[in-house]
């Protein structure tokens, strides 16, 4: 990906993140994700309905990488089934870890394909995805 375009997408998602602000509504799983090695601290809420991720929202303070990754994650995971979300998550984590991954599947998430060059920022790019991890741990959520 062209580095200017990559930066533009990240910056746009950092400065105008999608779905920032929590809601007081039933049916959401709330997950707090923070990093012991840095100061990012995000609260993420996920709603699963009829076998799909229906909504994701977040709030908190975090760096440009974490915040933008949260925003892009939200855009790309809403509407996904258990299997789709699992495949997307695995591919994303493989990319961050410099392992083989499905580039086509990741789409916009490819903006972090060079984060390995800054090893101490890998955790920032992975942080919000812990919420997806946690949701996927309970498959029964998708069977309701």
């Amino acid at each position: 990906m062209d580095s200017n375009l990559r930066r533009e997408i990240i910056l746009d998602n950092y400065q105008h993140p999608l779905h920032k602000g929590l809601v007081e509504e039933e049916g959401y799983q709330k997950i707090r994700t923070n990093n012991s090695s840095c100061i990012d601290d995000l609260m993420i809420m996920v709603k699963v309905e009829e076998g799909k991720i229906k909504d994701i929202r977040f709030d908190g303070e975090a760096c440009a990488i974490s915040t933008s990754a949260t925003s892009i994650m939200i855009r790309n995971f809403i509407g996904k089934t258990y299997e789709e979300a699992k495949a997307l998550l695995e591919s994303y984590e493989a990319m961050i870890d410099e392992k083989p991954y499905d580039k086509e599947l990741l789409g916009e998430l490819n903006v972090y394909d060079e984060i390995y060059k800054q090893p101490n920022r890998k955790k920032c790019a992975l942080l919000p995805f812990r919420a997806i991890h946690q949701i996927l741990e309970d498959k029964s959520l998708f069977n309701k």
Partner: protein
Amino acid sequence: MNREDFPIFKQDLIYFDNGATTMKPQCVIDSMTDYYSNYTANAHRGDYDNSMKVDVLYEGVRGKVRKLIDAKDASEVVFTKGTTESLNLVVFGFMKNELKEGDEVLLTKSEHASNLLPWMELEKEIGIVIKYIPLTEDNEVTIPNVLSTITDRTKVISLAQVTNVIGDVRPMKEIGEICSQRGIYFVVDGAQSVPHRKVSVQEMNADFLAFSGHKMLGPTGVGVLWGKKELLERTKPLCYGGGMNTSFESTGDFELKEVPTKFDAGTPAIAEVIGLGRAIDYLEEIGLDKIESYEQELKNYLLARLKEVPKIQIYNEKTASSIVAFNIEGVFSQDTAVYLNHYHICVRAGNHCAKILKEQLGVKNTCRISLYLYNTKEEIDELIRVLKDAEHIFDIVL
């Protein structure tokens, strides 16, 4: 000043994180290498030359500390791992046996975790009550606020002399006087003050003072708890074993050595204590008054130059220490720190272990610059040059 004494500055490095730890002059490093290369032995144990030499040097550092903090007697100096252990020793070795349910301990929201969490734990264990002295708009402690928080149940006031995020210097002498008039124990966290200014435990009327070696050019792993002799005599060690007892029997009876040796269970950090002693010599050769005034000059220069940078918010302009907390508008503090790192400038981003200060400041995370004697105006100029260029920050950090 004295930059050439610090081997690390042969690197391209601008180090502004002295509140976290400090660089070591060659003489401190050499003093520890000398122990390991030429006279390694345990302390308090042997009748051979090297052991006796170690004993003299190790015990001699208590005298250096005594002089540094203007204590009455060298036997009031206890070596610990650092400020955190020192404060834990005060809370769990002394206060736990002295305080009762309902007794009040006064702290502030700008204290470091090491002066909050032990008290919070003691609150759970024995039911003491923690109260926070209200801070002014500039996040400072005032005497009227101290007085208005004191009640008949107040038994302890425990404060940093200089705080590590805001860098305000507390009116310790006056608070110490209030404490001694009312029979309140006065505990002082000196982690950010002892390295930077002259401190006198007698002038402050302190009962305990805690500080760390590594924040004052010394090694990691060693710190000091100073306490009034009669209080240390009533303090129970947190650690039991060899070196600290005079006798023990299979019946379970044992006797401890006198203060301060009763706190020296196991082999102490001998090389580190010797290194700390050399660091104290080094600081006193320069003079703490001189260090303080040099840091002031640097800080004023830093503040004046920071104001040239657009979109900089400074949170503690009025405070008297050499700590400056700031943010660039619209940039998360950690991104600023990562950006500065690109130019080999080290600053700290975060809440600086003062996690409840956010309730007071209204901002959770800041960038912190904490200066020390080896920093220069040229380094500040370079910082300002880089910060003025910060509109390109995301070209660097992303």
